[in-house]
């Protein structure tokens, strides 16, 4: 019985995860190392990877910062009523339920050239949709809950006692945060960052809609993979996909490490 279950588990993992992952690796090197290099060194591939990198950096920074603040407010704020906190708390989850395509559509509707706000920005020569800012906003929308949801439970678990003890010992808000709260939540924050990086690295639907997928301009790594496949250039797609997959596996390792550290405290 035991053997059967373990065997089945191995089978599921092999079929669903391991074989597909290795297939990408094999596919990328189908035309040898040279094929892989050419696929990656295409100017559009380099540009797409750079765009993805930029989005990841900006999004992780903004959502990391605001996510931590939001978590702090939702758990600790006395200036928000309990009811309001409950409402805000459930709103945080909404992006999980929104299809990325819809997320992208929302931003096009709200900030597109035909909208009021978009028109205003266009007027002053600042393109939002079909340009970098729109792609960042779309990714921000999709990844917002990740940091909040990692930090909140830790804050709830450590409770307010230590922070109040710091207050009676003379420490004000910032010192308390830096010396008492931060050391307790830092591994949750690392975990949140890793999740945010992974999600913004891989974001596809929302970015595809918002960016317009213009080669060498608003194309990201994932939308390039999509376009390559649509153009029946599967080998080239494999190269970029392998780079993305390698990053993901690396992030997975960091996640495991952060999870262990998180458990220590």
């Amino acid at each position: 019985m035991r053997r059967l279950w373990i065997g089945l588990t191995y089978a599921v993992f092999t079929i669903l995860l391991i074989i597909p992952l290795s297939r990408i690796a094999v596919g990328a090197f189908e035309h040898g190392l040279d094929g892989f290099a050419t696929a990656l060194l295409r100017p559009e591939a380099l540009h797409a990877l750079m765009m993805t990198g930029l989005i990841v950096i900006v999004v992780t920074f903004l959502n990391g910062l605001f996510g931590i603040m939001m978590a702090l407010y939702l758990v600790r704020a006395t200036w928000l009523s309990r009811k309001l906190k409950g409402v805000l708390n459930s709103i945080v989850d909404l992006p999980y339920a929104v299809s990325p395509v819809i997320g992208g559509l929302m931003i096009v509707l709200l900030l597109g050239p035909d909208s009021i706000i978009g028109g205003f920005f266009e007027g002053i020569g600042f393109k939002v949709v079909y340009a970098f800012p729109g792609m960042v906003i779309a990714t921000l929308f999709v990844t917002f809950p990740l940091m909040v949801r990692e930090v909140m439970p830790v804050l709830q678990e450590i409770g307010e006692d230590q922070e109040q003890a710091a207050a009676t010992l003379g420490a004000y808000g910032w010192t308390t945060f830096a010396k008492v709260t931060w050391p307790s939540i830092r591994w949750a924050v690392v975990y949140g960052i890793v999740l945010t990086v992974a999600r913004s690295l891989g974001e596809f639907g929302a970015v595809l809609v918002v960016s317009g997928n213009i080669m060498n301009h608003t194309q990201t790594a994932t939308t390039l993979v999509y376009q390559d496949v649509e153009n029946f250039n599967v080998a080239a797609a494999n190269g970029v996909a392998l780079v993305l997959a390698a990053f993901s596996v690396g992030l997975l390792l960091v996640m495991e490490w952060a999870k262990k550290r998180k458990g220590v405290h």
Partner: protein
Amino acid sequence: MHVEVRDLNKHFGSFHAVKNVSFEIEKGHLIGLLGPSGGGKTSILRMLAGLETPDSGEIRFHGKVVNDIPPQERGIGFVFQSYALFKHMTVFDNIAFGLKVKKATKAKIKDRVMELVELTGLSGFEHRYPHQLSGGQRQRVAFARALAPEPQLLLLDEPFAAIDAKIRQELRSWLRELIERVGITSIFVTHDQDEAIEVADEIMIISQGQVEQKGTPWDIYKEPRTPFVASFIGESTVVDKASELKGFESAAKHDVRALIRPEYIEIGSETDFPVLSATETGIVRHLHFRGSEWLVEVEVKGNKLITYRSLEKETLHPGQEVRVLVHRAYLFNDENSWIEENGLKVDPMPIMI
């Protein structure tokens, strides 16, 4: 520090947690806030610390109103029930925290921390983390941490609640000595009357958000001012119709109830009592061995009374008939309460003999 509290009120939603509480505490005194859980003791303590804002009323330290002063500036030390030690800091860093915040010099911090480590018997543990310490040691660290910045008022919230019964005993006398040595005004919250009696100079009994009585443990025991205090402190049984008790017939009109402590009662054979007419017959129902004495349950006219009996005296048996003398009773009705001596105890006609 001289502490004065006037008409303090606190609501949590619709719950009136603290009702018109007023009291005064002399400098250097050690006060115990005693009462059942959920009675508002901790809320009072947290308002003194500034962790909770009163809805109305005044708190004065040294005659100065401190209501609007944040906890950081109040010059208090607070020991939390959970200790709230900083988990990621060593014992040394925990104790040093308040001094570092006040930007004391490195040398001064070191001196002060080592002094406190010595005082609290934690030498050799300075570099341990809280999770490497026993409950009692953690309590000491919490205590040392609160004392480090030399506060003028020390507040302790159920300081022994999380500690094993046996170590608790040791820690109580340790704490009492230490506070005496440091000479700091201290207030601690507890729901354990033994703890309050043993540690505090003065006790404030708090129930349902109100101060029932304030005084030395002995005064409160001797002269409880409300039925609640009488029943909360010490052991007792309540007799619904006090007039049924021999010697209290005239003192107790109808609707008066009596609260009787074990030591108010004496039991024995007929020859044991000089004035037999003040006693009445009772039947021993149960005997419980209590280590150094017997606890005797005796039934008198359907009322169950308890008393203690020395092991040196003749051993009683369940079902045995004995004479019972009630020396004293704490009588109360809806309006009043008073202590009444047995009216028949003093021989009414000594001249006749």
